[in-house]
């Protein structure tokens, strides 16, 4: 463009470069639409960023580690600088990991950053997912992105697990053995699957090399694609925002991508990197030199997977060792049932958005995030799921709980068995009650204002507390949420007294809907009339 408008002036070098790029990449049009892209500001909206940045850190440090790691199970004798392993036979994988830790410059720090970042990556994804859940940010149009995020979490679990197994140390070898046992428990095909995966009898000489390509290529490749899709959808849908004056379902209020948001996000990346590096510099993670090389005849107590697999460990630890023998075949229910429940625990949270959409029949788009208290049933369900997950983590670490709280491991196991069924129900009920209490408090605040702590004595001797009324913006925030009506299915019989035919599941849907929005399940929010009536009165009520 500059060539036609100013033929006599030589454009600056930067402009010429930009023109060159625009002619080939269409940068100007892209920048025009995207530079002013708006992101709303809230601390909880940055949890996804923490996940993204820790993922990038994992990739960067992982590349460094691949330069020195040998994914081979060939047996070698250790002659490196760590004396307590001198002369011990080990796989090349273990040997190279010990070498990375002691003989490669910066190796131990990079290894620890890689591993700590992995734990933090999964934890950040978990918290990010719960933020999305509790604010209802999974509702239309974001259901697909919710699933992408969920898949990222699950893939992250398995990428983490394969990475944890690569050093071929005693701890991870026990974990892989655990996995082999779970596969073997699958009826009919278990043995074949195990032989296929390990290339013969466990542990064989293949699994490190196989896990290596899964860990550094297959799973991260899929994850990168999903991350890209996840981010594109965030761009496309735009970010949700909390209700406030001026914010509607049709706009986004916040900072533009360039320059403010980019500057903040870039700085935030370095803060995340710096913090993880500090953690990695301060605290040991997975000291494989102390754990020792894997040998199938050795095992250590306290053999747990990394935290994100802890709930599967819990399932297997608390499951009674049931076993059925049928016509010469053994069905190891004590292992197989946990294997079946494992994906169900994860699926329970993944399918919730679809369940809620079905119950409410809500097909509109939602861009205003809910406050958790205004969706008591959803919040109750989410809290119950977290408690379920946590109970299983307790089961997975039952030995550590026993030694550090001076408890009996048997009692903990029984507690977890019962709590597995009971605690989520109790947490659901309690959370729902708390949410409704908070809704009542909001209604009270809107109508009567905030308690000021100032006690006034009236002429006739009565003491009253002065309430400060909320301003309009605050009242708007507290009353912006929608109130739904429960679904009605109508009479069970029609006007002729003949039983009406309802679509399958419709009755159940109506019952659930009542549980969401029926009487006693949500607090009616204050109406403008109520507010006027109270404020038009004289002073206090």
């Amino acid at each position, binding site marked *: 463009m500059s060539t036609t408008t100013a033929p006599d002036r030589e454009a600056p070098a930067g402009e010429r470069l930009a023109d060159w790029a625009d002619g080939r990449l269409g940068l100007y049009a892209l920048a025009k639409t995207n530079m002013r892209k708006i992101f709303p500001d809230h601390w909880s909206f940055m*949890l996804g960023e923490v996940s993204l940045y820790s993922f990038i850190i994992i990739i960067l440090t992982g590349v460094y580690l691949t330069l020195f790691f040998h994914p081979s199970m060939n047996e070698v004798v250790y002659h490196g600088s760590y004396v307590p392993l001198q002369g011990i036979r080990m796989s090349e994988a273990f040997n190279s990991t010990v070498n990375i830790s002691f003989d490669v410059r910066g190796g131990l720090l990079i290894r620890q950053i890689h591993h700590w970042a992995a734990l933090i990556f999964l934890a950040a994804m978990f918290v990010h997912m719960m933020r999305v859940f509790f604010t209802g940010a999974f509702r239309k149009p974001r259901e697909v992105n919710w699933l992408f995020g969920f898949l990222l979490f699950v893939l992250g679990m398995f990428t983490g697990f394969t990475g944890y197994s690569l050093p071929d140390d005693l701890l991870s070898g026990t974990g892989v053995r655990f996995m082999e046992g779970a596969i073997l428990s699958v009826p009919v095909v278990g043995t074949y699957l195990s032989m296929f995966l390990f290339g013969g009898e466990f542990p064989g000489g293949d699994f490190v090399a196989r896990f290596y390509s899964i860990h550094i290529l297959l799973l991260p490749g899929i994850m990168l694609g999903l991350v890209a899709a996840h981010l594109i959808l965030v761009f496309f849908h735009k970010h949700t925002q909390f209700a406030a004056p001026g914010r509607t379902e049709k706009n986004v209020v916040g900072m533009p991508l360039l320059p403010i948001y980019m500057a903040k996000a870039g700085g935030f990346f370095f803060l995340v990197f710096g913090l993880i590096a500090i953690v990695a510099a301060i605290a040991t993670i997975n000291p494989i030199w102390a754990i020792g090389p894997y040998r199938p005849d050795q095992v*250590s107590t306290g053999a747990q997977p*990394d935290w994100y697999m802890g709930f599967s460990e819990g399932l297997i630890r608390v499951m009674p060792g049931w076993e059925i023998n049928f016509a010469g075949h053994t069905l190891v229910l004590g292992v197989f049932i946990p294997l079946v429940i494992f994906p169900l625990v994860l699926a329970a949270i993944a399918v919730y958005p679809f369940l809620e959409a079905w119950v409410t029949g809500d097909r509109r788009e939602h861009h205003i995030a809910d406050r958790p208290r205004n969706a008591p049933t959803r919040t109750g369900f989410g809290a119950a799921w977290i408690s379920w997950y946590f109970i299983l983590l307790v089961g997975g670490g039952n030995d550590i709980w026993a030694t550090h709280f001076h408890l009996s491991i048997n009692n903990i196991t029984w507690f977890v068995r019962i709590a597995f069924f009971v605690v989520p129900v109790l947490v659901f009920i309690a959370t729902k009650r708390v949410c409704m209490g908070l809704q009542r408090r909001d209604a009270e605040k809107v109508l009567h204002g905030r308690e000021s702590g100032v006690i006034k004595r009236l002429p006739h001797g009565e003491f009253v507390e002065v309430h400060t009324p909320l301003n309009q913006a605050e009242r708007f925030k507290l009353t912006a949420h929608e109130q739904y009506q429960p679904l009605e299915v109508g009479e069970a019989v029609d006007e002729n007294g003949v039983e009406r035919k309802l679509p399958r599941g419709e009755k159940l849907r109506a019952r659930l809907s009542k549980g969401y929005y029926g009487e006693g399940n949500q607090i009616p929010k204050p109406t403008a009339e109520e507010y006027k009536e109270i404020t038009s009165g004289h002073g206090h009520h």
Partner: protein
Amino acid sequence: MKKLSARRRHPLAAVVVLLLALAATGGLYAAFAPADKAQADTSAQSLAIDEGKKLYDVGCASCHGTGGQGSSEGPSLVGVGAAAVDFQVGTGRMPAQQPGPQIEKKRVQYNQKQIDLLAAYVASLGAGPAIPTSQEYNPAGSDVAKGGELFRTNCTQCHNFSGEGGALTNGKFAPDLEGASAKHIYEAMQTGPQNMPSFPDTTMPTKQKQQIIAYIHTINSSKSSTPGGLKLGGLGPVSEGLFAWIFGLGALIAVTVWIAAHTAKAKKS
């Protein structure tokens, strides 16, 4: 007799008598002297046993019975050996403070001399492993790496890969090995206190015990180095996960809150 009598003036008679007398004295000495020595030894031993018995009657008999035969409160001590006493009393486990799933370590109640007396008494009840000499338990110069291999084969199941201890059934546990002396580790292996299996010399020779002790002292003592930084209890992924959540993610969430609180604000008109 006449013959003898006739020769009593013989010039060699005195020599013969001298020889006979020497033979008799030497024979008598040979017959009695070792016995005499043995008796003297027994008396010192029996003195220790008597003294030990006195201590035993005060501190131990209420549970283990007046003759060490055991009772409903405590096991028989016949045949446990001096090493068991030295370990149990020397680590403060005995005398027991209270019944429970397991008798725990506490402040040592007797001095080493008293412990030796108690050990002498209990050893007198029946043959058992003796208190090891420093030559037996001293791990100096042992192959640490070999000890590590033995440790992982025999000990980590209960004591954890770095000897931090672990849970057993019904509130029992394998203790943390940090600070355990070479002698006590040796005695524990030899005698198998409480829930621990014993590893007598027939299954684990002295040399291997020394190697294990050397390994434990290398990886889990106040002088052990932790190349990676804080060892977080040496418990593995549970404590690591907790640390990642609280100090890793916790700090990062604090950062998100901090950044969100310092946002660019629109100018107030």
